């Protein structure tokens, strides 16, 4: 930090121009952002070519980083099921083979992690959430995705419908590996990827929004990468 800085506007005389105040604010902001920079460290930044497709603050990643908050669940498929429950006229549940009998779709999407990596053109197969909700009377405006291992994430219903969300079991032509969320994960590519909950076991419709695992720990309740809704208050 530089030497003594004025800590208030008290030394500014009346009649000083707007420029003085603006400069003071800019200098104070510069003090706060002065920080050590590691010479020659560039991280994994990639510039240029994809800028149109990449949300603000993101960089393009060719790998597929695995971020887990706990041990990888390994529910045997013969004991696995997926459910829709809560504020619906009747709950639904599918076994693994019943889930596979549902109409399936293939989608190619870009995905965006709040830790700043974006992966382009990821290929998934699964069932649209619209299909899972078809024919149900949905009586709540919010949904909690709940998972093996206890992870949860919350979304407004309208972020899951209209072709915006899927429950997927196949990535790049192969069954989803456990470390990437298999047997199935939620896929909501228009929001930050923490909303695409791994090891999904169901969607619970609720009347009042309930912040999930990361949403209750300082992350944004909605998570739109195009508005950089990373953290609470953004």
């Amino acid at each position: 930090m530089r030497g003594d800085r004025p800590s208030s506007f008290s030394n500014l005389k009346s009649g000083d121009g707007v420029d003085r105040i603006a400069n003071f604010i800019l200098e104070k902001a510069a003090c706060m952002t002065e920080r050590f920079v590691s010479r020659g460290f560039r991280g994994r930044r990639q510039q240029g070519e994809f800028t149109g497709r990449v949300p603000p603050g993101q960089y393009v990643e060719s790998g597929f980083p695995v971020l887990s908050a706990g041990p990888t669940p390994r529910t045997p498929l013969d004991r696995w099921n997926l459910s829709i429950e809560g504020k619906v006229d009747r709950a639904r549940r599918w076994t693994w083979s019943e889930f596979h009998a549902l109409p399936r779709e293939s989608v190619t999407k870009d995905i965006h992690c709040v830790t700043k990596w974006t992966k382009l053109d990821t290929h998934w197969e699964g069932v649209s959430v619209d299909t899972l909700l078809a024919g149900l009377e949905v009586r709540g405006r919010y949904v909690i995705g709940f998972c093996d291992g206890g992870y949860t994430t919350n979304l407004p219903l309208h972020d899951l419908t209209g072709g915006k969300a899927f429950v997927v079991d196949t990535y790049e032509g192969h069954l989803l590996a456990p470390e990437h969320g298999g047997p199935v994960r939620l896929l909501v590519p228009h929001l930050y990827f923490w909303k695409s909950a791994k090891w999904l076991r169901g969607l619970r419709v609720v009347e009042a929004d309930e912040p999930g695992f990361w949403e209750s720990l300082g992350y944004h309740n909605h998570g739109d990468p195009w508005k950089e809704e990373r953290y609470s208050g953004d």
Partner: protein
Amino acid sequence: MEGRALLGRLTWQLGDVVSVHTETTRTRSITLAVPAWPGHRPGQHVDVRLTAEDGHQAERSYSIASPSEAGNRVTLTIERLEAGEVSPYLVNELRVGDRLELRGPIGGYFVWEAQMGGPLLLLAGGSGIVPLMAMLRHRATVGSKLPTRLLYSARSSEDVIYRDELAGLTSDATGLETIYALTRSQPSGWSGYRRRIDMEMLRDVAWPIDRHPQAFICGPTPLVEAAASSLVTLGHDARHIKTERFGPTGADRR
């Protein structure tokens, strides 16, 4: 241990890189001069933070390789993980004269000092040797002859860090035995272990349970957990087995 718990909150400090030393093709030791360094104990680690021009930051933890008697000098030994973000910078880019942000020392649990007694059983997997080397360097500095066995698992003899120094420390006179398990390739004429640490190897190498050894195990998570579990199965007291997991190796991270 009484009274050691109250230490004060850790803050980020800047250290100056005063020397660098290549240990193997993939590892390098970096010595920092840290002005307000409070000292550290053998086995402790630091968090290191890198900051790019655009504000992006990356943090990793590294064990301190230097013994506690080294004053305000802190030596870290870093293994470069091929897909890593921080280790390639520390091993290939960082130079003498640069500064590095660090926070520490951290961790009073995975610590051994000579007054804690022995015999000592040290199990190292790959770069897990680093905090154990701090313990061995401390042991040598204070002239301890407590019976000590180091079982060090590495992919090949080229991947053994501190090989010459360990040879120098190992003798009947010093009371240190060093046993290697080279898991992927071995020099011709190698008569030592050619496989990963397992229960049979530990049955041969570990101290008899009636010697009540203190065990420290450090390395990739699977190695640490398997070795700790084997020691317990062999009858060792779990309270005298201390572990530090380094997570999977770089090849497995993605």
